[in-house]
């Protein structure tokens, strides 16, 4: 059904249209999604675009922006045998400021990788004598699942450690920080949840086009073409190029679950700093299932970025992975130094995996 979106002729045709409309003006277009970066690199889309149209990756990898101190806090719960920690596979090897979950596991802690938060709830139900803490990370795409589980009523021994983050405040932060961005490719999956309308205040406040795009090559190039066309014609609107999955109002069931369980709070983004209103804290009504309250662990703030790691600049789109002196030398996916090299959504990991193709 969707193979047409990879049709090379169509993709090339769309890319040549980008070149035509962009003329000689320089463009800097940012996306904020690990899957977009994967698609752009995997399908060699940067090579198809004219040299004056640059597409840079922003902070779209949730694992990469989770503060080191939060990883430490959860790793410690496992290492001290206070709880079984469940999380997604990508999180395991990310270095905290002091430790990683993989290290906590090697030290005898009970750390389990789950595919879904529902699996974690089931485990907690099956082993009522143990405490379970689900390290709940991710953007608006992942938060509704944890919210739904808390609403359904998990067993007493289950709680979540929320490191959830909201994407629009980060986009606003980037536009306000003078990063020289001409427009955003908005994250497709986050957008299925928050809806196209969510970007409208930002597009009008900063006068930048924001275009929602899917993940197939034709989707991404169409998004870029839309932004370029808007810029040259002086428009700055929210456009939805991913209409097969994203509606203006988003997913109201998922949004309802998020706002029932979480309230916005300031949140620290590793390598970037604190972004106002970009976090999701468990509301008081669900305190019993909030690991931060239940186990007295906080862990905000301290990012603990490894020495010499340029992830901060990579996450802000200021530096390409190849610009980091450690890239491919001291830092590789097998022996990662920084968080961007660990997660399969990390910009450095993606760049490393596909660098031979480049």
């Amino acid at each position: 059904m969707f193979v047409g979106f990879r049709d090379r002729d169509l993709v090339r045709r769309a890319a040549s249209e980008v070149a035509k409309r962009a003329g000689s003006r320089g463009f800097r277009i940012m996306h904020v999604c690990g899957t977009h970066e994967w698609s752009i690199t995997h399908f060699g889309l940067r090579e198809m675009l004219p040299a004056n149209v640059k597409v840079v990756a922003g902070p779209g990898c949730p694992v990469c922006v989770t503060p080191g101190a939060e990883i430490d806090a959860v790793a410690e719960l496992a290492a001290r045998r206070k709880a079984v920690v469940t999380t997604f596979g990508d999180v395991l090897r990310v270095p905290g400021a002091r430790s990683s979950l993989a290290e906590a596991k090697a030290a005898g802690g009970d750390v389990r990788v789950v595919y879904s938060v529902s699996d974690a709830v089931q485990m907690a139900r099956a082993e009522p004598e143990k405490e379970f803490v689900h390290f709940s990370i991710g953007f608006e795409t992942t938060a509704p699942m944890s919210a739904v589980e808390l609403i359904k009523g998990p067993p007493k021994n289950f709680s979540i450690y929320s490191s959830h983050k909201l994407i629009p405040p980060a986009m606003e932060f980037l536009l306000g920080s003078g990063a020289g961005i001409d427009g955003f490719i908005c994250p497709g999956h986050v957008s299925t949840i928050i809806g196209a309308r969510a970007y409208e205040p930002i597009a009008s406040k900063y006068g930048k086009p924001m275009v929602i795009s899917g993940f197939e090559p034709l989707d991404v190039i169409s998004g870029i073409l839309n932004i370029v066309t808007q810029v040259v014609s002086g428009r700055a609107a929210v456009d939805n190029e991913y209409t097969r999955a994203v509606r203006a109002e988003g997913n109201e069931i998922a949004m309802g679950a998020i706002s029932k369980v979480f309230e916005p709070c300031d949140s620290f983004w590793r390598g970037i700093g604190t972004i106002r209103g970009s976090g999701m804290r468990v509301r008081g009504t669900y305190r019993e299932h909030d690991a931060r309250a239940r186990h007295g662990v906080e862990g905000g703030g301290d990012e603990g970025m490894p020495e010499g790691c340029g992830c901060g600049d990579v996450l802000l789109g200021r530096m390409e992975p190849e610009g980091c002196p450690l890239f491919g030398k001291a830092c590789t996916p097998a022996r990662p130094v920084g968080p961007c090299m660990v997660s399969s959504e990390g910009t450095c990991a993606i760049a490393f995996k596909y660098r031979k193709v480049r």
Partner: protein
Amino acid sequence: MPVCLAVPGKIIRIDGEMAEVEIGGIRREASLSLIQREGLKEGEYVLIHTGFAIAKIDEGEARSILETWREILAAERAD
């Protein structure tokens, strides 16, 4: 499994809040608790993220976008 990845899955069977879906030839269970279930039919596609369907995929929309591009290309080749 990347945290933010969602993949299209074809609905094979709906059973209340759960569905059996096929993702790239592999069958899996997925929760339908985050989407509107009314009108959802077997054979339709949904986006699956960490075991939950998060959006229905509109095949008509997908087809019309492809058609537009194909027409542009065909028109140019005819020139």
